[in-house]
């Protein structure tokens, strides 16, 4: 098992350094360079959205889900306060009562 753990650590290094493992000279094509400015937000959205609207691999069919309310509250808080910490705290302040109190 420890061999697998060391192997997974190597996988982390290789994946996160993939394109700078080698320092051979090459230029990224211009279009790809431009495309990369859309990659960070796309990656975050791809991780975040399924965590909010899916449950056990399926699209949720109820509005009674604490995550929907918490995410909506979080987005409103972010755009009014521009503060990620407030987004987390405010979102959890909506999430926990609904989830633990009402079972959403």
């Amino acid at each position, binding site marked *: 098992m420890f*061999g697998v753990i060391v192997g997974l650590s190597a996988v982390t*290094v290789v994946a996160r350094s993939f394109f700078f493992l080698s320092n051979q000279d090459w230029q990224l094509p211009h279009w790809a360079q431009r*495309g990369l400015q859309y990659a960070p937000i796309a990656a975050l959205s791809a991780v975040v959205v399924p965590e909010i609207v899916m449950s056990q691999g399926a699209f949720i069919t109820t509005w009674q889900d604490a995550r929907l309310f918490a995410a909506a509250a979080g987005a409103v808080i972010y755009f009014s306060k521009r503060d990620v910490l407030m987004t*987390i705290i405010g979102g959890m302040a909506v999430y926990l009562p609904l989830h633990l109190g009402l079972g959403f």
Partner: protein
Amino acid sequence: MMFLAPKLYQHPEFKIGMRELAPQALGIAAWGLMTGVSMVKAGMGLWASIAMTLLVFAGSSQLAAIPLIVAGAPAWVILVTGFCVNLRFVVFSLHLRPYLIHLPRWERLLHGYVTADISYVLFTKRFHHPGKTPEEQLNQEAYLAGNDCLNWGSWMVASLLGIALANFIPPSWGLGFAGILCLLGIQCSLASTRLRMVSSAVAGIAAVTAYALPLKLNIVVAIAAAVILCLSLERIKPHIQRRPA
């Protein structure tokens, strides 16, 4: 660790990197905590959980690997799974290459190893272009190191705490959702142009639609779909967007 290099930690940008990560630290910690809890709950032993936390340092690949390890899957299956779940980092590394390529290889790999999602996003948000002079390059490296340092620290402390307290924090409480709210906040902060909002919407829809793909490949598909669509829109309507402010 390279954070111990005085030229980095004594640099003013190191502190700025830490300060810009600080608001996210709570979300990172909540996520680390629940990853720690999940490892123990899934039946990984105490020492294996600790070793995994300290070495692997990649929440999504840890969570994907745990059930396979517990079920005794062959090592190569576990490693390939880990790599596929980490494919988004391959995209990030393409972006980071011009910023880091001037460094010696082992320093590049160390930076790559500790730069996870949030640090990558904050770094590329602060520095739109790779440094051209040695001073600019050092500024950027120091910022990244400060950012990574606090990210690594909050993740590790919380994850080890999660391992220790696994029996007292039921996953059903959903504390890990704080990590998602953290990413959501950063996502909102990046929505600075119309095309980026398009990118966000397309990636979200694509990730849900392609959710059935194995190995979290839906994330890679979603990034590709969003980037390709935004590049096409740029061509059709070049005036809707130039560089973000």
